[in-house]
C-alpha cells in the first residue's frame, strides 16, 4: 500500500484512510482495475473534504460531531453471520405479498434471507457485487461518475468502501406490477459503518415500484448511495422506510436522472434513528419529465432527521411536486431543506413545494427551508412552509366526542402525517407504510 501522500488529509478522515490502506472492506482481490481506481479516487476525495461542517449550507441542520469524534470504520464482510437475529428483525418489517425481496445484512447481500423468484425476461435484479462481475459495463458507467461534489463527502467515502448493494435493471417496455422490496438490516454486533451502493435503471417506457427499508440494532453508521436512471417515458415509484436504531447514524443519498416524459415518484418515511439524513437529488434531463418528492418524518427524544431535496430542471416542460411533513416531540430536531432550480431556457416548468410541520412540546425544534432558484422567465413555481402546534380547536372537537386527550392528540398527529403517505399508488405498499406509521406514533414520547 502506498504510504506516500501527495494530497492533504483532514484529521477526521485519517482513520478511514488508514482503514482503506489496510485494505479493509474491499470485496475480494479480483476487483477490476476501474473499480480499484474509482475506490482510490473516492478515498482521496473524502480525505481532502473530510466531514462537512455546519457552515456548509446543506449540512447546517445536522450535528455530526459525535460521529466525527468517534469513527465508525467499515469492517470486512462476514457473509452468513447473524442471519438468525436478522430473521427476527425482518419479521415485522416485511411487505405482505409474494413479490421479490432482497435482503442486505450488515451491508452485504444475504441470499438465505432473500427471495428473488422468477422475473420477466429483460429484468435483472441482484446484489451489486454480482452486478460488477456479471454486468460490468452497467455498473461501471455509474461508478465512474466522479463523486466530486464538495457537498457530498460521504458519497466519495461510499465510493471508496462500498461492499455491496442492489442493482435493478429493467429493459425497455416492461411493467412490473408487484413492488420489489429491498431490506437493509444491521445486526448491531459491533459498532461499524456499512457502505452500500445501488443502482436502479429503467429502460424506455418501463415501470416499477420499489420499497427500500432500513432497520437495525445497536450502534452503526449506514452510508447508502442509490443511483436512479430513467429512460424516456419510464416510471419509477420508490418508497423509503427508515426505522434505524436509536444509536444509528443513517446518511442516505439518492441521485436520479429523469428522461423525457419519464416520472420519478420518491417517498421517504423516516420513523427512527438517532441521526437520519435523507437526501434526494433529481436531475430533470428530458422534456416533460415529472418528479414527485413526498415524505414525512417523526422524531422524538433526542433524534435528528433531515430531508434534503434538490431538483434541477435543465430542460423545458418539467413538473415537480413536493409535499414534506414533519413532526418533532421531546428534544428532537427535524429539518427540511428543499431546493428547486430552473435553468435558463427551461421554460414552462411547473414546480410546487410545500413543507408543513408540527411541533409537540416546547423543546422540540423544526427548521424548514424551501428554496427556488429560477433563471427562466416563463415558469410556474411556488413554495410554502409552516411550523405549528396541534390545532386546539380540533383537539377540543375530538374531546367533546368522548375521545380521551392522549388518543385525540394521536389521531390528529396521524391525520397530519397521513396525507403524503396516501399519495402512494400501490395499495399494499400504502397500507404497509400506514401501519408502520401508526406503530411508530403509538410509541411517540411527547
Amino acid at each position, binding site marked *: 500500500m502506498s504510504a506516500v501522500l501527495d494530497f492533504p488529509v483532514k484529521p477526521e478522515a485519517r482513520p478511514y484512510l488508514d482503514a482503506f490502506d489496510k485494505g479493509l472492506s474491499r470485496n475480494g482481490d479480483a476487483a477490476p482495475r476501474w473499480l480499484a481506481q474509482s475506490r482510490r479516487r473516492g478515498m482521496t476525495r473524502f480525505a481532502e473534504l473530510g466531514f462537512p461542517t455546519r457552515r456548509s449550507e446543506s449540512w447546517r441542520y445536522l450535528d455530526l460531531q459525535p460521529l466525527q469524534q468517534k469513527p465508525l470504520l467499515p469492517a470486512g464482510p462476514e457473509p452468513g453471520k447473524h442471519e438468525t437475529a436478522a430473521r427476527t428483525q425482518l419479521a415485522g418489517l416485511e411487505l405482505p405479498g409474494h413479490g421479490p425481496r432482497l435482503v442486505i445484512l450488515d451491508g452485504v447481500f444475504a441470499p438465505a434471507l432473500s427471495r428473488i423468484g422468477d422475473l420477466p425476461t429483460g429484468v435483472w435484479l441482484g446484489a451489486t457485487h454480482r452486478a460488477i462481475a456479471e454486468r460490468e459495463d452497467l455498473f461501471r458507467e455509474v461508478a465512474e461518475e466522479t463523486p466530486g461534489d464538495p457537498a457530498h463527502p460521504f458519497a466519495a467515502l461510499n465510493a471508496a468502501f462500498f461492499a455491496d448493494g442492489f442493482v435493478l435493471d429493467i429493459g425497455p417496455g416492461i411493467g412490473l406490477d408487484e413492488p420489489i422490496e429491498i431490506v437493509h438490516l444491521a445486526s448491531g454486533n459491533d459498532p461499524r459503518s456499512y457502505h452500500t451502493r445501488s443502482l436502479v435503471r429503467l429502460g424506455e417506457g418501463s415501470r416499477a415500484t420499489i420499497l427500500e427499508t432500513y432497520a437495525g440494532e445497536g450502534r452503526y453508521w449506514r452510508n447508502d448511495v442509490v443511483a436512479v436512471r430513467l429512460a424516456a417515458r419510464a416510471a419509477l415509484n420508490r418508497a423509503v422506510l427508515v426505522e434505524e436504531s436509536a444509536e444509528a447514524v443513517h446518511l442516505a443519498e439518492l441521485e436520479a436522472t429523469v428522461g423525457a416524459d419519464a416520472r420519478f415518484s420518491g417517498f421517504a418515511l423516516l420513523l427512527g434513528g438517532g441521526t437520519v439524513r435523507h437526501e434526494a437529488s433529481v436531475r430533470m434531463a428530458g422534456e416533460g419529465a415529472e418528479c414527485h418528492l413526498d415524505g414525512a418524518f417523526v422524531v422524538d427524544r433526542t433524534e435528528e432527521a433531515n430531508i434534503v431535496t434538490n431538483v434541477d430542471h435543465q430542460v423545458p416542460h418539467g413538473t415537480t411536486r413536493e409535499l414534506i411533513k414533519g413532526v418533532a416531540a421531546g428534544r428532537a430536531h427535524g429539518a427540511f431543506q428543499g431546493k428547486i432550480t430552473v435553468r435558463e431556457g427551461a421554460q414552462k416548468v411547473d414546480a410546487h413545494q410545500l413543507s408543513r410541520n408540527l411541533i409537540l412540546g416546547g423543546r422540540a425544534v423544526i427548521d424548514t427551508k424551501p428554496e427556488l432558484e429560477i433563471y427562466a422567465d416563463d415558469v410556474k413555481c411556488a413554495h410554502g412552509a409552516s411550523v405549528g402546534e396541534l*390545532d386546539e380547536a380540533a383537539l377540543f372537537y375530538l374531546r367533546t366526542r368522548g375521545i*380521551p386527550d392522549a388518543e385525540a392528540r394521536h389521531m*390528529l398527529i396521524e391525520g397530519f*402525517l397521513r396525507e403524503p403517505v396516501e399519495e402512494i399508488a400501490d395499495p399494499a405498499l400504502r397500507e404497509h407504510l400506514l401501519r408502520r406509521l401508526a406503530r411508530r406514533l403509538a410509541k411517540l414520547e411527547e
Partner: protein
Amino acid sequence: MLEIKNLHARLDDGREILKGVDLSVAEGEVHAIMGPNGSGKSTLAAVLAGRDGYEVTEGSVTYRGRDLFAMAADERAREGVFLAFQYPVEIPGVNNMYFLRAALNAQRRHRGEPELDAGQFLRVVRERLKLLDIADDLLQRAVNVGFSGGEKKRNEIFQMAVLEPRLAILDETDSGLDIDALRVVARGVNGLRATDRAIVMITHYKRLLDYVEPDRIHVLQDGHIVQSGDKSLAAELERSGYGTFAETPETAETA
C-alpha cells in the same frame, strides 16, 4: 338531568358574559334557549361542554347528580353530554368513520361495554343513516373537510345519532341552513327525542322551533334568563323581538 344555578362565567380577558343563569332541564324534555347576538348563548354551550378560555366565577352545574365542572371535556362526553357545534371543526387526515368509531368505543369502554369492530360499527352506522340524508361518501372523507355548511350540520346530528347522548346541546344548529337542510336536521333531532334524553337547542331564530317543538323556551339576554315559558313564547318573541334589544342582523358570534 341538568341543573344550572346562578352561573357566572367570564372570558379569559375578564369580560363577564354569563351573569347568573338559572336553568333546570328534566329527562325527556326539549328546551330552547333564544336570545340576541352577544347575549351569552354560545358561551353557555361552551362552558357546559368544557371549552378552554372561560372561567366560571360563581354558581354550579349539576348533571345527573354530579358536578359537571369536576369532569374534563372528554369525560363529560363519555358521561353522555354532547355538543353540536355552531362551527364544526375540519380535521384533515382523520377519516369520519374512523373518528366516530373511536368516539363510540371510548364511550363504550367508559361504560364497561365491549368495543365494536369495524363490521359491527358499520351496522350501527347504516341504521342511523336512515335518519338523516347523508351521502355515504361523506363518511369516507376526512372529518368535515370540504363539507358544505349544511353537510357539516347534518354530520353533527349524525354523530349525535350514533353516540346517543343523554344530554344534547345544539348550538345554533339551524344557522346557515337552507329550508331543505333545516328540515333534514329537524327530522334528525325529532327522531332522537327520547324519554331518557334531554335536548337543549340554542338558537337565534324561531324558525327551528317550527320544526322541533320545544317543551320550554327561555330568553337569554345580557347573561341572564329574562323570560321562560312554553312554546307560545316563541310566537310572542316573533312579534315583539327581544324586548328592549333591537333585532340585529346575524353576524358570526364567537363561540
